[in-house]
């Protein structure tokens, strides 16, 4: 892998609540290089969205963040908020799931994209309003808004869901960030529109060499666009590797369960989907052992260790950077 632009080391996020401390992210590491795509997959409550918000410094005041978030070698954790503001939207940008709440209904979409530009070019000469407007139209055109110069004067409610998501992407990319974090960018969209948006993300990534962190629960989308994958479960990394490692050589019982549970459109249906019994643990209720142990089909073969000892990510012998956090040394399918 080329030198990563974004490196996250031992990230912990704990929320202070009335009910006590709730650990949402419990020590994860990841890295992504220019032009590459890292997908973070997991179900609700796995900590994938909290991780991305932590990287962006967007968590509320009751969240304690520790660890390192290195953007081009510079640590963002603990940076004063005015410093962080210069980085956010300039070097690293975020696209949310819900484009409607990411846009201000009172301002035209062109104005909003231009504002993102002006905020980061405020002191330089070329940041006149006209220039910002010109940049906004250029970006809107680039993300595929037809007749961008005229449509820049439209308001968010005049756009469809897919068009709004394009506007949000234009806003995120107007300053040509090094890293783009996309948190479920297509979950709210129809599948034909999803295909348009994913193609757009791939195109801009190719054009600008942006590093993309894609947060998704949809393994189909992940298989199509990701280079590397991090599977999260209950705030921890369950498995990490290339996209082929995950889909062809899944090593963690949870990853295998997810793959088996997913119905497929391209092949005749299986008589039954494989399921993972039970449901994910709520944050804070995790015991000392493996967080997946209560739902795991392989725990009996390992025994006590799954309950007493928390598994760490360990490399899979002979599989490069492929790692899994599981006491079962062998691949579950061979076990």
């Amino acid at each position: 892998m080329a030198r990563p632009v974004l490196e996250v080391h031992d990230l912990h996020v704990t929320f202070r609540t009335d009910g006590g401390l709730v650990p949402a992210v419990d020590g994860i590491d990841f890295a992504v290089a220019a032009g590459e795509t890292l997908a973070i997959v997991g179900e609700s409550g796995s900590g994938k969205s909290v991780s991305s918000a932590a990287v962006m410094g967007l968590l509320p005041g009751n969240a304690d963040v520790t660890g390192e978030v290195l953007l081009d070698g510079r640590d963002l954790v603990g940076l004063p908020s005015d410093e962080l503001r210069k980085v956010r939207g300039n070097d690293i940008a975020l696209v949310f799931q819900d484009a409607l709440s990411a846009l201000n209904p009172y301002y035209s979409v062109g104005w909003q994209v231009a504002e993102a530009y002006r905020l980061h070019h405020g002191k330089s000469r070329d940041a006149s309003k006209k220039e910002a407007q010109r940049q906004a139209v250029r970006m809107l055109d680039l993300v595929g808004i037809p007749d961008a110069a005229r449509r820049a004067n439209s308001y968010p409610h005049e756009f469809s869901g897919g068009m709004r998501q394009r506007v949000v992407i234009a806003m995120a990319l107007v300053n040509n960030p090094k890293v783009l974090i996309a948190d479920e960018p297509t979950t709210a969209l129809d599948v034909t529109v999803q295909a348009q948006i994913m193609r757009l993300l791939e195109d801009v990534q190719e054009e600008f060499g942006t590093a993309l962190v894609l947060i998704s629960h949809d393994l189909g989308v992940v298989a199509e666009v990701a280079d590397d994958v991090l599977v999260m479960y209950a705030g921890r990394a369950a498995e990490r590797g290339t996209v082929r490692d995950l889909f062809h050589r899944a090593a963690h019982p949870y990853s295998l369960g997810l793959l088996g549970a997913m119905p497929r459109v391209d092949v005749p249906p299986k008589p039954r989907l494989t399921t993972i019994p039970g449901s994910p643990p709520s944050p804070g209720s995790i015991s000392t052992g493996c967080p997946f142990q209560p739902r795991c089909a392989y725990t009996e073969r390992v025994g006590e260790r799954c309950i007493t000892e928390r598994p760490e990510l360990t490399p899979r012998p002979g599989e490069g950077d492929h790692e899994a956090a599981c006491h079962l040394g062998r691949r579950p399918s061979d076990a």
Partner: protein
Amino acid sequence: MPDELLHLENIKKYFGLRGGVPWRQAQAVKAVDDVSFVVRKGETVGLVGESGSGKSTLARVATRLLDPTAGRVEIGGVDVTKVSGRKLRPVRRKVQMVFQDPQASLNPRQSVGTILTTPFRAQGIRPTKIQLVELLEQVGLSAEHLDRYPHEFSGGQRQRIGIARALSVQPELLVCDEPVSALDVSIQAQVLNLLADLRDELGLSYVLVAHDLAVVRQVASRIAVMYLGTIVEEGPAAEVYDHPAHPYTRALLSAVPVPEPGAVRDRIVLTGDVPTPISPPSGCPFRTRCYKAEDICSTKRLVLEAVAGSNEHKAACYLPEI
């Protein structure tokens, strides 16, 4: 036919838009525009389409939660189009509905026991506790859950309660509107397997409304594809999935990502957005986004016609793929 559980004939459902000012002509959203649809005993029919295609509206007309603007609804061979109020209750014994969001469709102030009792009472029956426990066990819950409240359950469990409630009056047909789209993948699989088990055990039939084509493929025996208020293609699931005839079905299927890294797929990426259902395009509703559209497509609205070599598989297209 005697084995037809549900028969919809030329259903139209328009929603009126107030003109706002008196001199502006009142407009209507044509949510469902002339759709005929049949469900036979033992079938699982998948009703697929994107947002705004009218699939949920059609499901609500089929369960008589909405009155159709025009057309005929027959349930179990009886015309129920004009039946309303209390007289609908016998109809409800035959057809029940499962909703997308169990959080919103379960009363948070009622215990599970009360929730499950309500449909019995509507039919004038006092259920025994044993009956209620049996219902819960049918959906993979147990007697201990009877006194709990919806907030004490996870999303998957709540959907099971919604299914148990629908099963309480022993319906023949369950209309499920996006039953798993709010659930995580691992939980979604549990609920889909449950629906399949119930079908085998109780001989249920389903109408499954869903936008997720992979989910529908997993359980449906027949599917109908909707676009802008009309059915553009229908047929046995395997035939439609493997040999889509309508360009829209083809584009829709090709857009679904497949969990296979490096899989080569000739994806048809549609341009533009779905037109407004207030004034749909003349002729074929899909022609404005269709990659095959020709002049003829704007002339006349097509009806579903049998695809070459099959009488079950039908499509409404001047230029079908097969």
